[in-house]
C-alpha cells in the first residue's frame, strides 16, 4: 500500500511528461487524478493505522542492493508509525491542494506537473523510508524538482533563490551522508530499526561530530536560525503551489529526520546537545518573529513566520521528553496545514492584485469576502487561537519544554505574542480599511478548484483544533518509543 503511495505520483509524472504536445492542457487532470489517488491511499493509511500496535505498519520490504562482501547491503523498506502517518496524510492532502492552486499554469504544463508529482514521490520516500541510504536517496531526489520548479516557474530573482536553496540543502545533506555512512559502517547495517535497537557507542570519529553532521542537514531544512536564509528567498520567488509544498511538507522533512533518525539513534549525543538546540530554537522563534514584523511583502512575511513557527518544533525536540516531542510532531502537522493555507490565500490574492506589497493593499475584504475570511481563519490558527489546531500543538510544546528550558520557552511564548501582533496587523492592513478605487474590479475566489483547495485545509485545521485526539492518538503512539529512548539517557 505504501509502495503504491510512493509510485502513484511518479507514474502520473511520467504520463504527464509523455502526453502529446497538443494535449498539454490535460497534464493538470493527470496530476489531479494521480495526486488524488495518492491522497485516498494516504487517508486509508492514516485511518487504518492502529496506534495500539507497536512498531511499523504496512511494511513493504525487499533486498535492493545485495553486495554483502562489501558491507553494502541495502534494503528497500517502507513503513509508517504514528510519527509518519500524519505526515503522509499531510503530504497527500497538500499535493492535491498544490495541484489545484496550479490550475491556471499555462507555461510548459507538462513539465510543471511532472516535476510537482515527482517531488511528491521524493518527499513520500523520505517519510516512508526505514533505511538510512534509502532515506538519503529520497532526500536528494527532492532537490532537482524543487530547483527546476523555482528556477523556471518562479518570479523575481528565481534563479538566485533556486540556487541558494540547492547549495544550502546539498551542503547540509553532504555531511548527513558522511554521518550515515559512519553509522552504517560502525553498526554494519543501514536499517533504522536495527540502529535504534543496538545503539552505536563508538566510531572512527567522535559520535558528537556524527550527530552534528546529521543534524546540520535537518537544521538547514527545518530551517533553524542562522541557517534559515534560503527559506524566505525560496518562498518569495517560488510559484504558489511550490510555496505550499515547501512550507507544508518539505520543511517537515527536517523535523521528521530529527525525530526519526538523530534522536533515537544517537540519544546520548542529542541529550548533550539539548541546550544548544534550545538556544537555537529560541533564537529562531524570536528572530523569525522580529524579522516578520518588518516585512512589507506579504509572501515574505508568511515565509519568515515559518522560520518562527518551525522554531517551536526544535523547542519541543530540545525538551527531550515525551510531551515536548509530541508537541513538536503535532506542530509539524499543524504548521503544514496552516502555513499551506496561508500560502494558498496569499497566492490567490497575488493572482488578482499582482502585487505582494502590503502597503498597496487595503480593504480587500469588501471585494473578496471568501478569500478574506479564509485569510482570517488561517491567521487566527497561525497565532494559536484556541479551537484551532495551532493552539494544541503549541500548548503541548510549551508544556513539554517549560521545565527543561524555561528561558527558551519564555522566548517561545513571547514569540506567540509577537506573531499575534504581526498577523493581526497584517490582516487589518490587507483586509480592512477603506476599499480603494484601485481594487474595485477584484473578483472573489469562486472557481471550484480554489474553493476546494481552501476548504479542505480549513476543515482539517478546524477538525484537529476541535477534536485533537484525531491527531494526538497517532502522534503519541509514534513518539512513545522515541521518548522512551531519549528519557533513558541522562
Amino acid at each position, binding site marked *: 500500500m505504501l509502495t503504491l503511495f510512493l509510485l502513484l505520483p511518479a507514474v502520473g509524472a511520467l504520463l504527464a511528461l509523455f502526453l502529446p504536445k497538443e494535449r498539454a492542457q490535460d497534464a493538470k487532470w493527470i496530476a489531479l487524478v494521480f495526486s488524488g489517488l495518492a491522497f485516498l491511499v494516504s487517508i486509508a493509511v492514516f485511518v487504518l493505522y492502529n496506534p495500539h500496535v507497536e512498531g511499523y505498519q504496512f511494511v513493504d520490504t525487499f533486498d535492493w542492493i545485495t553486495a554483502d*562482501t*562489501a558491507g*553494502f547491503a541495502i534494503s528497500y523498506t517502507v513503513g509508517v508509525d504514528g510519527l509518519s502517518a500524519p505526515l503522509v496524510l499531510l503530504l497527500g492532502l497538500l499535493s492535491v491542494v498544490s495541484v489545484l492552486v496550479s490550475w491556471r499554469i499555462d507555461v510548459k504544463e507538462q513539465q510543471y506537473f511532472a516535476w510537482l508529482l515527482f517531488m511528491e514521490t521524493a518527499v513520500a520516500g523520505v517519510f516512508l523510508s526505514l533505511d538510512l541510504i534509502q532515506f538519503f536517496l529520497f532526500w536528494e531526489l527532492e532537490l532537482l524538482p524543487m530547483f527546476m520548479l523555482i*528556477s523556471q516557474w518562479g518570479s523575481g530573482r528565481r534563479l538566485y533563490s533556486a540556487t541558494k536553496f540547492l547549495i544550502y540543502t546539498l551542503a547540509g545533506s553532504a555531511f548527513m*551522508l*558522511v554521518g550515515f555512512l559512519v553509522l552504517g559502517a560502525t553498526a554494519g547495517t543501514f536499517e533504522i530499526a536495527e540502529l535504534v535497537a543496538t545503539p552505536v557507542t563508538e566510531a572512527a570519529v567522535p559520535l558528537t561530530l556524527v550527530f552534528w553532521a546529521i543534524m546540520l542537514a535537518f537544521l538547514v531544512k527545518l530551517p533553524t536560525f542562522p541557517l534559515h536564509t534560503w527559506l524566505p528567498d525560496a518562498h518569495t520567488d517560488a510559484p504558489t503551489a511550490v510555496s505550499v509544498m515547501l512550507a507544508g511538507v518539505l520543511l517537515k522533512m527536517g523535523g521528521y529526520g530529527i525525530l526519526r533518525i538523530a534522536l533515537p539513534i544517537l540519544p546520548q549525543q542529542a541529550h548533550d546537545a539539548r541546550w544548544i538546540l534550545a538556544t537555537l530554537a529560541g533564537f529562531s522563534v524570536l528572530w523569525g518573529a522580529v524579522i516578520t514584523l518588518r516585512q512589507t511583502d506579504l509572501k515574505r512575511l508568511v515565509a519568515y513566520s515559518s522560520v518562527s513557527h518551525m522554531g517551536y518544533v526544535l523547542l519541543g525536540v530540545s525538551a527531550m521528553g515525551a510531551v515536548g516531542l509530541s508537541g513538536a510532531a503535532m506542530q509539524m502537522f499543524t504548521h503544514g496545514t496552516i502555513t499551506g493555507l496561508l500560502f494558498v490565500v496569499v497566492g490567490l490574492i497575488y493572482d488578482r492584485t499582482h502585487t505582494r506589497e502590503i502597503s498597496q493593499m487595503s480593504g480587500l475584504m469588501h471585494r473578496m469576502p471568501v478569500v478574506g475570511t479564509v485569510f482570517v481563519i488561517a491567521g487566527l490558527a497561525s497565532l494559536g487561537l484556541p479551537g484551532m489546531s495551532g493552539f494544541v500543538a503549541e500548548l503541548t510544546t510549551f508544556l513539554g519544554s517549560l521545565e527543561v528550558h524555561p528561558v527558551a520557552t519564555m522566548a517561545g511564548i513571547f514569540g506567540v505574542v509577537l506573531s499575534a501582533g504581526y498577523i493581526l496587523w497584517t490582516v487589518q492592513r490587507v483586509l480592512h480599511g477603506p476599499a480603494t478605487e484601485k481594487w474595485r474590479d477584484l473578483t472573489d475566489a469562486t472557481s471550484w478548484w480554489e474553493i476546494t483547495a481552501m476548504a479542505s485545509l480549513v476543515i482539517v485545521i478546524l477538525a484537529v483544533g476541535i477534536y485533537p485526539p484525531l491527531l494526538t492518538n497517532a502522534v503519541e503512539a509514534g513518539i512513545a518509543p522515541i521518548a522512551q529512548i531519549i528519557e533513558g539517557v541522562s
Partner: protein
Amino acid sequence: MTALAAALYIGPAVALYIGAGVVLLADLVQGRRAATGLLSLVALAVAALWAIVQMGSGAEGPILHGALVADRFSLFFTFLLVATTAAVIVGTSEWASRVEDRGEFYALLLVSVGSMVLLAQSNDLITLFVALETTSLAQFILAGIARNERSSEAGLKYLLTGSIAAAVLLYGFAFLFGMAGTTALPGIAEFVRHAPEGLRLPLIMSFVFVAAGIGFKMAIVPFHGWVPDVYQGAPTPVGSFLSVASKAAGFAVVLRLFYSGLGGAETLITEDWGKLFAVLAVASMLFGNIGALVQTNVKRILGYSSIAQAGNIAVGVAAVAAASTVGPSGVLFFLGTYAATNLGAFIAVNAVSERLGSDDIADYAGLFKRSPMTAVVLSLCLVSLTGLPPTAGFIAKVYIFNGAIQTGQWWLVALVAVAVVNTAISAFYYLRWVRTMILDEPTDDRTIETPGGAQAVLLLASVGVLFFGVWPTPLIEAAQRAAAALLPA
C-alpha cells in the same frame, strides 16, 4: 603453458592489434574507406568474444614468463574498454566520415585500446611501461589528428605533458626495480612485504613518483593541466575516448600496481600511499570543481569535471590502502557507471557541437526544444555526474564513500567529508547547465538533428545510467569479483 592457452589470454589485445593493421590495409585500398569504421567494430567484437571465451573457460593466471596475468580484474577492464571504444566509434561515425585520415584514426584508436587491454593485464613493470607508452603515443597522435590549429595545439601539449609524466613514472619504476631487483610485480610485492625499515624512505619516494606519473592517465593532480586543453582542442571523439578509456586504464594500473604490486594491504608503506592518494584526491576535486565553475566552454567544463571525478575515484584508491576488497570494487563500480555517464555526456556534446559549430554553454539554451532527446540524455548524465538519484552516479558515489568510511580510519572519514562538500560545489555548474538546456528559451528555434549512431549510443547510455541507478547489484557483483582477483592468493 601451451601456445593455445597463451593465445587465449592475450587474444583480445592481439585481435585489436590485428584489427588495426587490417584497417590500415583497407584504408590503402581506395573505395573501401567507408568500411574502416565497420572493420574496427568487427575487431572490437572479436576481442569481446575472445574475452567471453576466456571468461567461460575459467582460464586465469600469469603467462609469458609472468609478463601478463589474466584474471577477472583484467576481464572487467577488457569489457569496459572494448564497450567504451565501440560506443565512441558508433556515436561519432558521422564525424569520422568527414575526416581525411579516417583509416589512421580508427587504426590508432584500436592500437590505443589494445594497449590498454594489455595494460590492465600487465604483471611486469616493463610490459606495463611499454603498453602505457603505446597507448599514450597513439592518443597523442589522435589528439592532433584533425590537424587544425586547436587540434595540433592540443596534441603538442598533451604529448609534452605526457612525456614528462612518463619520465617521472619511469624514475619511480627505476627505484622500484633497483630495490626489488626484479621487474615482476609479484616479486616487487614480495619484496615490499618484507622490506626493512631503512628502505621506507626510498620506497615512499618511488611510489610518489609512480603515483604522480600514473596520475597523468587518470587526470589527477599534479599532471592534470592537459585535460581541459585537450578536451577542448582535440576532436570530440578523442575527448570522449580519453575521458573514459584512458582514465579507466590509469586506475586499472594504479590498482594493480599499488594494491597487488606494492604488497597489498599491511605493509611498511600501505598507509603512506593511502594518504598520498587522499591528498591527490582532495587536490583534484578542488582544482576540478573550482576550475569548472568559471568555464563557459562546455568541453572545458567536462574537462574540469573529469579531473574532479578522478578525485572522487581516488577516494576509493585511498580507501584501498586501509580496507580489503571494498575500495577496489568501489573504484571499479564507479568506473563502470562513469563510463556510461561520461560517454553519454560527451556523445551528446559532440552531436550538438557539430551542428551548432560552437561549444559555448550559452548556445545550449533551450536545447530541450531543439533536440529533446539529446537534451534529456545530457541532463540525465549531468545529474548522474553530480551524484543525485535516481542515477548510477548516486549509487557509485555512496558506494565508493561507504568503502572509504568502512575502514574506520579517521582520515578517510575526513576525506569523504571533503568529497561530499565538493559534490555540493559541483552541483552548481552541472545543474546550471541542465537548467540552461531544459528551461531557458532557445535563441534559435531550428531543430538539431542527432545522427542515428549517436542516438543509439545516447539511448544505451541513458538506459545504463538509469538501470544501474535503480538496480546496481549486477554491476556491483561484477566489480567485487574483479576486485577479489587482485588480492594475493
